[in-house]
């Protein structure tokens, strides 16, 4: 079974080919990292996978299903969740509401029972809450539960993004630069959490990251991109030693 596969995907923005024939496979249970200089097309790949952009060419496969044409709001229900590089939380809601919203893909109540708030809705709300509380415990967010996002420090928001993605019960987790804007200590925490997510929760992680320390700490395999094209793929050491990659980062 193919867990996740990107098959020769490309996308053009006007005349620019932001992603140019990228293929890779993610095996279940691994942490797969995409690295590359700024503008290499890493985030674009994420936007293609979460279906915000339509690829000009190529195919995306998740658990043997072609998801190239699936609308973006159905991606979460399939089991793919993502975080955003520049934090896209619901700012004027509490942390708890943010996480509960992530349960939306598992919503089973209909409009009219919600209108009357029937006991079934109440029961489902409690079920969602229990799922959310597990994530809150996992990421140590108890003290911020009822805080509004606007009042939370950046580091906590970053963790909240991670928590919100986890609340959708994903099989594949897309992390878009989880360490950007975090200090060294927070980055270390993030590394532990990613390892825990992989080992304890058994969630496969596809990650875009700049911080090579974090990359080498958690990644099983790495794909290096430049100008939308793949340069090298393999273990961290292999990719770091690859002459093309060194040239892309150091110039020359």
């Amino acid at each position, binding site marked *: 079974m193919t867990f996740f596969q990107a098959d020769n995907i490309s996308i053009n923005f006007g005349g620019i080919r932001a992603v140019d024939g990228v293929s890779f496979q993610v095996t279940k249970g691994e942490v797969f990292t995409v690295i590359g200089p700024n503008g290499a097309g890493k985030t674009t790949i994420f936007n293609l996978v*979460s279906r*915000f952009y339509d690829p000009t060419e190529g195919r995306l496969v998740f658990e043997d299903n072609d998801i190239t044409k699936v*609308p*973006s*709001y*159905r*991606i*979460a*229900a399939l089991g793919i*969740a*993502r975080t*955003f590089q520049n934090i*896209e*939380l*619901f*700012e*004027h*809601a509490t942390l*708890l*509401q943010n996480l*509960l*919203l*992530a*349960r*939306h*893909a598992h*919503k089973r*109540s209909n*409009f009219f029972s*919600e*209108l*009357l*708030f029937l006991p079934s*809705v*109440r029961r489902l*709300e*409690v079920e969602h*809450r*229990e799922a959310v*509380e597990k994530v809150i415990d996992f990421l140590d967010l108890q003290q911020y539960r009822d805080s509004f996002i*606007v*009042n939370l420090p950046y580091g906590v928001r970053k963790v909240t993004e991670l928590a*919100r993605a986890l609340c*959708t019960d994903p099989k594949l987790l897309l992390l878009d630069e989880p360490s950007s804007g975090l200090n060294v200590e927070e980055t270390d925490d993030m590394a532990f959490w990613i390892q825990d997510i992989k080992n304890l929760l058994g969630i496969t992680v596809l990650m875009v990251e700049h911080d090579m320390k974090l990359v080498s700490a958690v990644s099983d395999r790495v794909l290096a991109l430049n100008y939308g094209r793949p340069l090298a793929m393999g273990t961290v050491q292999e990719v770091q030693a690859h002459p093309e990659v060194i040239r892309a980062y150091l110039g020359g």
Partner: protein
Amino acid sequence: MRFPFKTSYEQDTRLFRDRIDASWYVLLAALVVLLPAVLPAYYVGETTWVFIYAITGVSLMVLVGYTGLVSLGHAAFLGIGAYAHAFFIEHGVPWVVSAAMAVTLATACGLVVGLPALRMTGIYLAIATLAFSVIIQEVFSRWESVTHGLSGMAVPKAHIFGVSFGGETAFYYLCLFFLVLALWLTRNLLRAPTGRAWIAIRDSEIAAQSMGVNLAIYKSIAFAYSAGLMGLAGVLFAHKIAFLAPDIFTILLSIQLLLLVIVGGLGSLHGAVFGAIFVALLPPVIAILRDSIPASFHDFSAASGLAPIGWFGDAIGNFLKKPGVEAGIFGVILVLVILLEPLGMYGRWVKIRIFFSTFPMYKRATFKRQRSYMKTERLR
């Protein structure tokens, strides 16, 4: 500061936070129920306006305050509800059926308008709804077989199951009932997945989408639900105003309704009620001031011997008597609220409460809003 002790998850799904909270609302309910016994009939009638406006406020709060979609044409839905109800009543349909049909019609119209709205945001949506309301207003004045056109349409008093709700007090309780119903239903939605989806759409469409929210469906629901509530308000509005004419449901009314939710405070049901109190009671207050300011200034100038104070009072009185001054006063208040208290009356109320409950640890920054200076940041 009060920290409610929580022992079960169900506690957070309740209507009221805890016993103390609930008892305040019980007290408020008792007060509102007993009010007609002590107030003169005129003020009972004015308070009824508060309830009707509060329903419109809840309607717009769902759309603007929670879903973040702006409509400059909501008076059209109010008009649709009012005219439909008046038409059905005129043709002998029983009150409850007529009201239900009027609300359904308004909801359906909301759905139809909402569909093209799905692809629009911000200013485009505002203009599209404005265009819709201009067209609907023209329909009101041209479709004479239904609306009696420009000559207007008289609306009889409400008779429900043979009981007359014609008196001020009876109609007061009718409006109160529907307001409480509207608040309860809306609150139910807001504590359920639908309400969270609305809030998510307001704060970040893109994140909402990636969490599994189907934007098209939830925006449609918001539009239809909001239009339905507006239709309900229209039903009561028709009885209250007793005579419908197309030039009631203009863009100025739509703007007044938006003013209501802004002054009240966007993003809270309390705000809808606060705003309604403000919008419904400002005109009578201005009317009272018009006469009392010159009189009291004259008294003061007679007592103190300072003639200019009397002239000043006359000047204020004359100014308030000029046509169109009311709109100007609304305008000034709107400007001041947006500049000084963007969170509205409810926001101020929360700030005051937090100031006292956290004293002396109050942080101004708690309410500081981030501004965005780049074009791309404002896109959603």
